[in-house]
């Protein structure tokens, strides 16, 4: 008993206070941490974007210096990709993947916590560069030899080390999600009964596992070039600058699908609910998602059509890029097919999902124009490309994730976001988005290159740049409304109940917010959209018939062996205990990272950091899995 008491001191099971969040291994809490952190970084990245737009509002802008501008656009890209969209996808995956497949947690709860803390600490580390002499300024792609040119400053070391640490976090969470999907599914939850979002999370996890190693190697080589006089990318010594581009885009292109596929999964959940119809062609949507992931590994060099690979490679990668439009098109058609013949409710989650489809069609088609290589030699590295990938990643991914927030906020908090303000948010964001990015197509075709802090007069770019700036601030206002809505609704929103949208999947069978253990009784799944089929049957024409006996959301299914009353079952559930070792291990890694950045005197920090990480890992492996309760 004495031992137990000590353990309790070390690892208090408390549910409140900072310490409980620092030590939590609950996938839902970690999901919320991911979400809140990503949202905070989103405002930082958005602020950077607004400064960029202010500078470019007119010719010869004087708001920012070239140096400040180069840092801001680098950090804007890096932030939005690595610190916003990836973690917001991780937030949804963490919170809902286990629930959607009927599990009580992820396969490795402490590894999950480790991933989050490493992401947070790395993000803070990268941003700390602003205070200690300047942030990375070589664009988020960090092309060498520009990235290795100035070794007197540590700006690009922050970038190289920071990205690698974030990569470690992503690999850990990907392994975790894969193990979760393969081993933790509820009885009856076959792979082809999994919600599409779970499928997309699985595909993304595989994409990350296979795509991060090449860039990790590249980043280490780059770090060695910068700090140890290695010559991987130094042309004068026989190194090859293009090697970096291949390694980077071998990661960077699958990364695009890492950003978009979870959002596609989310809207594949939302569309059926608000159309009162099952997803059209579930198998096609699932397999097209997997196909996108697979082909996504074969198109990386379409980012290099002007680098001089030779016409054969260019033709090959151009055609491969066109091929990837096929499974993407399939998804679009299936989504539209889902709405066809339904009874469509235009509530906020649906509005954002529909906008996703429309904007993604535009972004997808402009993507096809990139595959036409001769045309791409004009579009590449111009504002046309900036327009294209914002239509995909903002018009697509961000709209999808915002749809997800409106859809699942009731499940997180038990309260609904304000529908009216949500609609104002939606229209402002849609209009602002198109005002910002549609003109960039024209700017790019009219010869405006990206990553330029100024442009001269007489080039015909002034008008559309001004419009884009107005649009950017409109987006900014819309997100302030969103933030206000969230803060208001947390405490004052309409209580949601278990199943506010008449949902189809397992998360709507449990209370809002869900209990720590998710399910009182392990659910047994009989079909795709299992919860829906417990509420509705189909008549002989295939039309919806409500089953009278069941009221949505209050249903408790007792599993095969689930005899007796559910309260007892609840008592027997063992959830993993809180642990601070994951946070400690990741803190050690980040200290090591700082040491590597300031290598000339930082070796001490490397030693200390590695000791801390080792301490964390030892503690982690030796602590008892479940705290003694009795």
């Amino acid at each position, binding site marked *: 008993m004495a031992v137990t008491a000590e353990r309790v001191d070390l690892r208090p099971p408390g549910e409140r206070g900072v310490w409980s969040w620092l030590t939590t291994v609950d996938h839902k809490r970690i999901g919320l941490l991911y979400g809140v952190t990503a949202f905070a970084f989103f405002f930082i990245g958005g602020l950077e974007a607004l400064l960029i737009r202010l500078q470019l509002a007119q010719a010869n802008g004087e708001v920012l210096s*070239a*140096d400040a501008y180069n840092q801001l656009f680098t950090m804007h890209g890096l932030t939005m990709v690595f610190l916003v969209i990836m973690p917001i996808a991780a937030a949804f995956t963490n919170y809902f993947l286990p629930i959607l497949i009927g599990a009580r947690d992820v396969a490795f709860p402490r590894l999950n916590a480790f991933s989050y803390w490493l992401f947070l600490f790395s993000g803070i580390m990268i941003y700390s560069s602003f205070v200690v002499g300047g942030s990375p300024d*070589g664009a988020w792609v960090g*092309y060498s*030899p*520009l990235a290795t040119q*100035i070794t007197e400053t540590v700006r690009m070391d922050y970038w190289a080390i920071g990205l690698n640490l974030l990569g470690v976090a992503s690999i850990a969470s990907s392994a975790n999600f894969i193990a979760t999907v393969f081993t933790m599914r509820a009885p009856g939850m076959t792979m082809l009964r999994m919600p599409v979002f779970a499928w997309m999370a699985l595909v993304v996890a595989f994409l990350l596992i296979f795509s991060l190693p090449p860039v990790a190697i590249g980043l280490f080589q780059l770090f060695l070039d910068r700090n140890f006089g290695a010559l991987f990318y130094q*042309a004068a010594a026989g190194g090859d*600058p293009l090697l970096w581009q291949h390694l980077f885009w071998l990661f960077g292109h699958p990364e695009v699908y890492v950003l978009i596929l979870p959002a596609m999964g989310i809207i594949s959940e939302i569309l059926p609910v608000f*159309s009162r119809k*099952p997803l*059209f*062609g*579930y198998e*096609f949507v699932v397999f097209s998602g997997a196909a996108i992931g697979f082909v996504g590994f074969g198109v990386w060099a379409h980012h290099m059509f002007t680098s*001089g690979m030779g*016409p054969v490679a*260019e*033709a090959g990668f*151009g*055609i491969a890029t*066109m091929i990837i439009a*096929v499974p993407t*098109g*399939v998804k679009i*058609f*299936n989504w*539209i*097919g889902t*709405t066809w013949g339904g*009874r*469509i*409710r235009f509530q906020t989650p649906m509005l954002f999902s529909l906008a996703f489809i*429309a904007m993604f*069609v535009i972004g997808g088609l402009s993507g*096809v*124009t990139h*595959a*036409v*290589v*001769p*045309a791409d030699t*004009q579009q590449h*590295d111009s504002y046309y490309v900036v327009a294209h990938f914002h239509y995909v990643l903002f018009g697509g991914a961000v709209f999808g994730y915002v749809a997800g927030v409106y859809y699942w906020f009731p499940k997180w908090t038990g309260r609904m976001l304000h529908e009216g303000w949500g609609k104002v948010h939606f229209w402002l964001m849609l*209009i602002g988005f198109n005002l910002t990015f*549609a*003109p960039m*197509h*024209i700017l790019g*075709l*009219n*010869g405006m*290159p*990206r990553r330029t*802090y100024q442009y001269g007069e*007489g080039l*015909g*770019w002034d008008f*559309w740049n001004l419009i884009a700036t107005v649009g950017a601030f409109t987006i900014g206002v819309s997100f302030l409304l969103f933030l206000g809505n969230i803060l208001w609704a947390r405490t004052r929103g309409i209580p949601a109940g278990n199943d506010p949208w008449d949902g189809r999947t397992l998360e709507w069978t449990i209370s809002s917010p869900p209990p720590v253990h998710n399910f009182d009784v392990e659910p047994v799944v009989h079909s795709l959209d299992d919860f829906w089929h417990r509420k509705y049957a189909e008549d002989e024409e295939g*039309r919806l018939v409500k089953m009278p006996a069941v009221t949505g959301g209050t249903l408790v299914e007792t599993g095969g062996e689930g005899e007796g009353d559910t309260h007892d079952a609840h008592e027997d559930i063992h959830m993993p205990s809180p642990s601070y070792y994951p946070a400690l291990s990741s803190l050690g890694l980040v200290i090591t990272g700082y040491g590597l950045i300031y290598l000339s005197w930082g070796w001490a920090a490397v030693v200390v950091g590695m000791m801390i990480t080792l301490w964390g890992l030892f503690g982690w492996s030796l602590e008892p899995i479940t705290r003694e309760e009795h």
Partner: protein
Amino acid sequence: MLTASLFIAAISACSGSGPQSSLEPEGPIAQDIDDLWEFVLILATIVLVIVLAVFVISLIRFRERKDDQRRPRQVHGNTRLEIAWTILPAVLLAVLAVPTVQGIFDIRTPPEGPDVLQIKVTGHQWWWEFEYPDITSDDGRTLLTANELHIPAGTRVNLTMTSADVIHSFWVPPLNGKRDVVPGRVSFLTLVASEEALVADNGFGPGVVLGQCAEFCGLAHADMRLRVFVETPEDFEAWAQQQLEPAAVPTEGAAAAGFETFNQVCTACHQATVSQPDGTVETIGLENFIEARGADSPFWSSFGPNLTHFGSRTTFGGASLDNVTDHLTQWLANPSDLKPMAPEYNDLAEGRILGMPNFGLAPDEIANLVELLQRWE
């Protein structure tokens, strides 16, 4: 959806505006690319309109109305339909792939023949060096200039390009797509300007088209611009002969004093081919370059632009500044005031030149230098 069609309309309405626009080709290669782009645009617009139309019809037709008691048919899919809309885009893309592959091999085939004008391009942070290897003086010097490229209309020009430092990208949208300029590698790009380009005036004078570096290359990437002067073959020939002439060393007045300063300060990085009063012709500054870089002749020829005919250029500082007295005076007082640079990181032996330092020149030294440089037309 509405915005989508609006922006397509806007693209067509605003197409071809500006001296750096890919939508107003000034030569056959850019024209081919533009034609291909328009073909894709039309195809994509048709797809966009059809898809969005079906989408909007579905949303309107199947929207939930007040007291809507409809019970939607629970359709789970339709294999035939799904196979159809998998194959249809594939066919459409195959149609697109044919001209794409043709176009790739067209634009990547370097021009050959005796009438091709060869130009060597070197990207530097942050300016362009142009050498015309086949245009030589009697004593064997080649034509060297910076940031302003002169080409004869109707002639195929083959650019052979590399970089002195980091990756750049040569882009003159009205003449061709862009091509990366990579250290340690040689890349090629063909430029052809049409006869019409001679008279086309987009605000920078007839025959002038603009371009700039398209691959982020550091601090002053935005100011690494260039101008192309399309000339008649006769005008081009006259220009070339004039550029091959050495600049005269002034013997008296402010310019002579300026030359003293030039010889002491500027030649650390710049070169100029001058003729002394006694008629001897020499390239000053060349020794410094060879000393720093070794005797092996690199692809490029100097650390800074060759200034022999500086006065004949309309711009300087990576074609980002008009070549007028005011700018030149300010530039010599502190170059980084006019263009963001980082000369504190310069390392000549390593070939790392990140801009022109402030040499702390006195006002009269500056005035003398301005006098000299403007005289060297």
